[in-house]
């Protein structure tokens, strides 16, 4: 390995460049330049390509800070992200623990695959599938009324809980995956040692298992929180009129109101918030890696 390293350094960038250039050029054109352009556009009064005269302005950012609507919606989206993340931890962490420490061999492999599988299938379609379950006269309504002796109406469709359910369903596999990876790495003998020294199950959980699996929890939380704060399709489909969030307002600027500079400013503010959150989470993540 050391000899390989030495020859590698000598050949260096010149040999690597032809292999690297196409991929990184593509990423530059389709990701990094657009992100920079977005920042630029967010300081404009008009789209320069529409032919109208334009000038630099801070107005788009002033709009964010002067109209409480945008700030309120951003806070609503952050709260949505927090709630979904917490539910994913509550539901996903125990599942990851069972997968890592209780199940063995083939059944573990099969169930792990089954948990991860939906998360690689179409997110839009999975959100849509909840419409059939949650609406009045839907499956949940029918099933509960068939079992319960009294008549109740379950119509969760187009409500805040519907948005939460749909998002938790979409993102909980992330949490299971990241927690499973860190839980699996915990040596069983540590747990046994703790138990034989007289610690209760709860103490072992609090003092050994949770601290050691913290990087997985944080990674999962970051992976879930960030996209949920920027979600717009899920609130639109499951939230109906109650589903107005920061993401849906950005969507509107681009597809309905056509105020692109304002949309760019709102997007950039979201990006800044997201980067701050990732930066806060990164020390814990780096410790894990």
């Amino acid at each position, binding site marked *: *390995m050391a000899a390989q390293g030495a020859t590698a350094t000598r050949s260096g*960038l010149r040999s690597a460049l032809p292999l690297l250039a196409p991929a990184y050029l593509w990423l530059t054109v389709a*990701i990094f330049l*657009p992100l920079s352009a977005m920042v630029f556009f967010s300081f404009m009064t008009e789209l320069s390509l529409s032919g109208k005269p334009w000038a630099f302005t801070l107005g788009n950012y002033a709009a964010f800070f002067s109209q409480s609507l945008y700030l309120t919606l951003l806070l609503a989206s952050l709260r949505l992200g927090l709630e979904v993340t917490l539910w994913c931890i509550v539901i996903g962490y125990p599942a990851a623990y069972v997968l890592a420490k209780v199940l063995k061999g083939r059944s573990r492999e099969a169930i792990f695959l089954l948990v991860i599988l939906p998360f690689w*299938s179409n997110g839009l379609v999975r959100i849509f599938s909840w419409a059939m379950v949650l609406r009045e006269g839907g499956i949940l309504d029918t099933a509960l009324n068939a079992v319960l002796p009294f008549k109740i109406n379950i119509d969760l469709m187009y409500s805040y809980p519907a948005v939460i359910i749909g998002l938790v369903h979409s993102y909980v596999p992330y949490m299971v995956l990241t927690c499973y990876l860190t839980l699996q790495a915990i040596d069983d003998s540590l747990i046994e040692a703790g138990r034989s020294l007289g610690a209760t199950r709860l103490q072992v959980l609090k003092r050994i298992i949770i601290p050691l699996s913290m990087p997985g929890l944080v990674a999962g939380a970051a992976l879930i929180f960030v996209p949920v704060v*920027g979600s717009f399709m899920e609130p639109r489909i499951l939230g109906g009129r109650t589903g107005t969030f920061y993401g849906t307002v950005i969507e509107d600027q681009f597809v309905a109101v056509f105020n692109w500079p304002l*949309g760019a400013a709102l997007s950039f503010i979201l990006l800044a918030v*997201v980067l701050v959150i990732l930066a806060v989470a990164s020390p814990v993540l780096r410790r894990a890696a």
Partner: protein
Amino acid sequence: MATTRILEGLGRLYIWLLLAFLYLPIIIMALMSFNVSPFYQLPFEWTTEWYAALWQNDQLIAATWNSIEIAVITTLICTVLGSAASLALYRYDFRGKKFLQALLFPPIAIPWLITGTAMLIFFFGVGIGRGLFAILLGHVALALPYVIVVVSARLQTFAPELEEAARSLGANQWQVTSRVTLPWIMPGVIAGGLFAFAVSFDQFVVSYFLSTPGQTTLPVEIYAAIRKGFTPEINAVSTIIIVVSMALMLLTARFFKFGGEK
């Protein structure tokens, strides 16, 4: 140790409850696509008329072909460019390599809403505009980092002595790469390619901002249909999509897993 056994039993039960939560809505949607009532009324009566109706829906069929075409081209471009970049990152050491590797994470970590709107603004500004070409540009960029990460992971299991041996036996650089290195990383390349296909085929957000009425992909078309109102036709096409993408992922898991063990 009776408590342990009870707790383990509860744990197993819990996992099955989670699986039920994950799969029930999908199964119900699939069942409803075979139900006669267009308003999802029970009792259930079997029909395939909604699937038959799909064949008459030219708009959906056109969007499906667009989706498949874009996903296939994205897969081809990403596997070639991604494998080349992974090889370079594995073989050579140079200043700024860490930085280049770190650059792979923003496309994965930044919400697609931000990336998608940024692409819309930029592509409009430079004259590429919207449409299928813009969607392809975006999909390749979104899928590339995944391919590089997956192929690089496979390369970690590669023994550099093999390349040395081939070289000392007189093979030139091209022969070493094509006869020794590539066959070894092939499972990673195939898994990366399947990932790329899945990322592109299931991509909604970025396609949504970059599409025009005539030039859309299947998820964008489905979103438009859902917002107009639910129909069993959407269930039928959604069921097809979910079966296709799950089958793809099972295939990927097979290559990635068994590839990694060999």
